[in-house]
């Protein structure tokens, strides 16, 4: 069963979803979502894995039901906030699964606190050149979803999600639209700093066992091969689901993750 709760930090309250496996001796699995989703995007994966792992899916500050930061200077801000949440939950060592922006946070966290992140699963790792990051800043940076009186931002949000592959079901489309509207400021804050981060540098410095996954129709698929080459020992899996793999292919993710986590015990 998936439950929801808040954990207090000195920065604000962080909202999360969690499920506990009775008698589980595995390290907790911490899940970090993509922009501009929320922990809701992991519910299907959590249902697949809930018999074996204790899981904690956090809403990044500015997303879902977590507090809204006034200003986010860099990705390190998010790392500190998420680690404070884990501290509040009494979670010291953990395995981590990050999707897109969540993967960006994951690698930086694994480098910052290597003793705490024991294994890491990344969906859509993005080793980009400076030019490519500048390109994405241009593509994803504009704040198309700022609320305006005539509601036109909503149609733009809806169409954007469809373009990103989120229209496989109207329920997914609707849920993502609400998450995007909820995070209209958070999205822009995250996309302002995430393209400044040198993901590749952090990624190469990760020392814990790692698994990388991607769907062939994910916007980050063209860079998947770079991730495999940069961490040749990393486990890998090709999954389905465009940019919404946890919703569209939860079984594929769960099977691959279970295999990886069991193999690296």
């Amino acid at each position: 069963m998936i439950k929801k709760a808040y954990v207090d930090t000195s920065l604000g309250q962080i909202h999360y979803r969690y499920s506990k496996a009775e008698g589980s001796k595995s390290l907790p699995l911490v899940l970090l979502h993509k922009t501009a989703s929320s922990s809701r995007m992991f519910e299907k994966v959590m249902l697949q894995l809930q018999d074996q792992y204790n899981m904690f899916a956090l809403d990044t500050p500015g997303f879902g039901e977590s507090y809204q930061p006034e200003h986010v200077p860099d990705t390190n801000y998010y790392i500190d906030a998420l680690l404070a949440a884990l501290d509040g939950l009494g979670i010291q060592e953990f395995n981590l699964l990050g999707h897109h922006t969540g993967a960006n946070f994951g690698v930086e966290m694994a480098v910052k606190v290597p003793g705490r992140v024991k294994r890491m699963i990344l969906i859509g790792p993005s080793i980009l050149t400076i030019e490519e990051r500048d390109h994405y800043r241009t593509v994803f940076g504009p704040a198309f979803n700022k609320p305006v009186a005539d509601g036109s931002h909503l149609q733009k949000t809806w169409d954007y999600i469809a373009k990103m592959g989120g229209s496989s079901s109207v329920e997914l489309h609707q849920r993502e639209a609400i998450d995007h509207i909820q995070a209209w400021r958070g999205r822009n804050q995250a996309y302002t700093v995430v393209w400044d981060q040198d993901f590749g540098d952090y990624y190469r410095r990760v020392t814990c066992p790692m698994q990388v996954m991607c769907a062939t129709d994910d916007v980050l698929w063209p860079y998947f091969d770079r991730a495999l080459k940069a961490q040749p020992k990393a486990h890998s899996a090709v999954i389905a689901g465009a940019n919404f793999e946890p919703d569209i292919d939860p079984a594929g993710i769960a099977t691959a993750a279970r295999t990886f986590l069991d193999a690296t015990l």
Partner: protein
Amino acid sequence: MSNILPKISKGYVETDRGLIHIQQSIPLHSQPRQSVADKTLVFINITSFGGVLLDRVLPALAGLGYRTIAADMMGYGRSDKRSGSTWYIETWADNMEQVFDQLGVAPDGLICGHFAALLGVELALRQRPGMKALVLEGMPFIPPETRKANLAGGTPPPMIWDEAGSHAVEYWKTAYKLMKILDPDLQLGVPNQKVREAYIAYQEVRCFEPSTMEAAASYEIEKKVSQITLPTLVMCSDTDWNLKYHDQVKAAIPNSREHRFKGIHPLHELSRPDRAHEYVEQLQQFFSEVLTD
């Protein structure tokens, strides 16, 4: 209001039927204990707004020494979606009593608006030990013949999520339309947080769930209100769409008091959040008189 106010803390309460989302504000330890110390006020939120209207009210009342809690009804705000069979007013009341039990509160004062006011009536009639006062705002006091007609008419279909996304803009317009009734002066400039929250709430529950209308229509409110024995404050504002029921509700509840806000309700004037103090003053005046040990 003090410049240093307690903060709002959000959380969930677990019930048999799912999680209820709450916001609460607790008096600061440094504040002088007043006669209202240890008194708990519980707000049951207007369905479509969640607790967003109370962002200044909860800390202000906590600043006066009350513990304040605002709960989203099951199916609304950030509470879980409803599951199982049809929910009636009594079902929501059972659920809310579980919330009170989990929180360990009576509560001393219960404040409910619009649809939630029906739930407030039901809870007041259950004569829960420790519950001492009731505030009903903009309560729909729908005549029996109208309720009967509503039930006979069947429930309208829920708003459909359209694959092309046209509903997204339609909800936006609906949210604005309803808020313009409450606040005719609302400017359609850059929407504030409350407009957005209300919009999201409409999206989440497809506006006002048909089964909720059915629950309201099947609740025999005219037979219930005359049985209320708790001190009750009946409030409404000039622009509330339930103003037409205000005098009837006041007349039907023995020994009730009433207050009518001139013009727009202080909490509904979204461009004037500073007006929250007018609302707090009314509650403070009422509760300081009726919540005496």
